């Protein structure tokens, strides 16, 4: 290669390509309602057929708010039409997945280097490190660094949203 410096951007492009490659594992889910499978991730895309409410699905990659359905037939469904099945609570993490109920089960990263129950139970506060955090000044010029971002106006949530959703679930 004439200019060896060109290797750096090439390595970066390759690493980005590898990192962004589709490696998503298939996930179990079901259809929340009767809906149409779309040929592409768009509400305006051609309909490939319908999916019945409650139908079991195998979900692959996600593009924005759309999910690629691999089974029972291929197509795209909107994320809001799909309900994920809890597969991660069926394995060795079962009993840990229920939030506060699991309090007291000390199983976090036993034997592994990490930050879990044991480490936090025995840790002593490090106030020097806290000062480092508090006094740290970023070397980044935020105005330039975030220049292309558009600050959006998004209205606050209505207080009843969650309650409504829970009511609908009960029905």
């Amino acid at each position, binding site marked *: 290669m004439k200019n060896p410096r060109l290797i750096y*951007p090439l390595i*970066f*492009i390759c690493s980005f390509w590898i990192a962004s490659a589709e490696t998503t*594992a298939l996930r179990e889910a079901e259809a929340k309602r009767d809906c149409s499978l779309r040929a592409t991730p768009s509400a305006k895309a051609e309909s490939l057929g319908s999916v019945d409410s409650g139908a079991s699905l195998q979900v692959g990659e996600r593009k*924005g*708010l759309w999910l690629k359905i691999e089974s029972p037939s291929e197509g795209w469904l909107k*994320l*809001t039409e*799909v*309900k*994920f099945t*809890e*597969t*991660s*609570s069926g*394995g060795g*993490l079962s009993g840990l*997945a*229920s*939030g*506060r109920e*699991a*309090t007291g089960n000390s*199983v*976090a*990263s*036993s034997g*592994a*280097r*990490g*930050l*879990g129950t044991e*480490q*936090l139970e025995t*840790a*002593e*506060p*490090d*106030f020097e*490190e*806290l000062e*480092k*955090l*508090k006094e*740290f000044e*970023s*070397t*980044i010029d*935020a105005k330039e660094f*975030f220049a292309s*971002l558009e*600050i*959006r*106006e*998004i*209205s606050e*949530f209505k207080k009843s*949203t*969650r309650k409504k*959703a829970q009511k609908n679930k009960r029905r």
Partner: protein
Amino acid sequence: MINLSRRLYLLTLTFSVFCIGLTNYTHAQFGLPKLPKGLPLDLGSSKKESTSKKSDTDTAAKGLSLLSTAVSSQSDEEEIAAGDAVAALYLGAAPLVESEAVSSYVQSLGMHIAAQTERAELPWAFGIIDSPTVNAFAAPGGKVLLTSGLFNMLSSEDELASVLGHEIAHVVLQHHWKIIKKQKLVSGVADLAMSEVDTGSGASEAAFKALEGIIRKSILSGIDRGGEFEADKHGIRYSAIAGYNCASAFGVLQSLAERAAANGADVSFLYKTHPTAEKRMNELAEILENNPSLEDAASDSVYAPRILEYQALLTPTQEAPIDGSSESAMLSSLSYCAVCNTH
């Protein structure tokens, strides 16, 4: 002869001083928290107001408003001191990473998102702690810590924004502080000890001594499921306001679900204190369904790939720390083709 407005002013002033005295007396008598030093109770400025043409009613209202501000800032000071004690405990378990570039990156992005919230004035600080565990922690008062394990798991700056948005929401909504405050009030000893904590230097050490048992318990228990769903919900809103992809939270949750499905020890503590990723995704889908305005914010920002540069800097520090010069050189070369083909 003293005119009527002057008399009313003196009456208001006397009443205000009486109220402050009474408040301090009550706090001293009943072990309530002291008013912090440096309160915005500038009586001199009140005098200036009264000599102007503003009505005496305004002056009285201002006196009451100042007292209300005093109580509010006192509460903030206590929250910040307790939160700093919480953050110190996390930092005792795992130190900050050494990379100045990565720390600057997370600090700047965190500040950018926090600036869009209702509590932008808090002393926010964001850092990455050196641990392969996948988790993030929000301490009351605005200190937010991410593990390097989580940072390296993310695939875009938008995903980082969604994680920071979630933690920022915990702080804004005072999830952890409400738990600590409640436990503090239940324990008369802790409450009394906390009332003796002065603001300023040494406040976090004193707060830790006063609240150690409560802090350790709250860290290990986490908050309830409702609080986590609420932080997800407000977090995607904050990151969307800041210009990032609100749907990127699904990307983070998908990664967590995959690790949990593989029984990864690196997410076990996170799963102990959080609902499952599937439940969180289902809840978020409901939020999106009920708030169509968020759908317009569901595409990646132009800065999405920028995180890869910083992950490349952080990964080697886990095994062999690199010095500042080599770090700068690496960042310089990597940033070449990041977003806009410029340095």
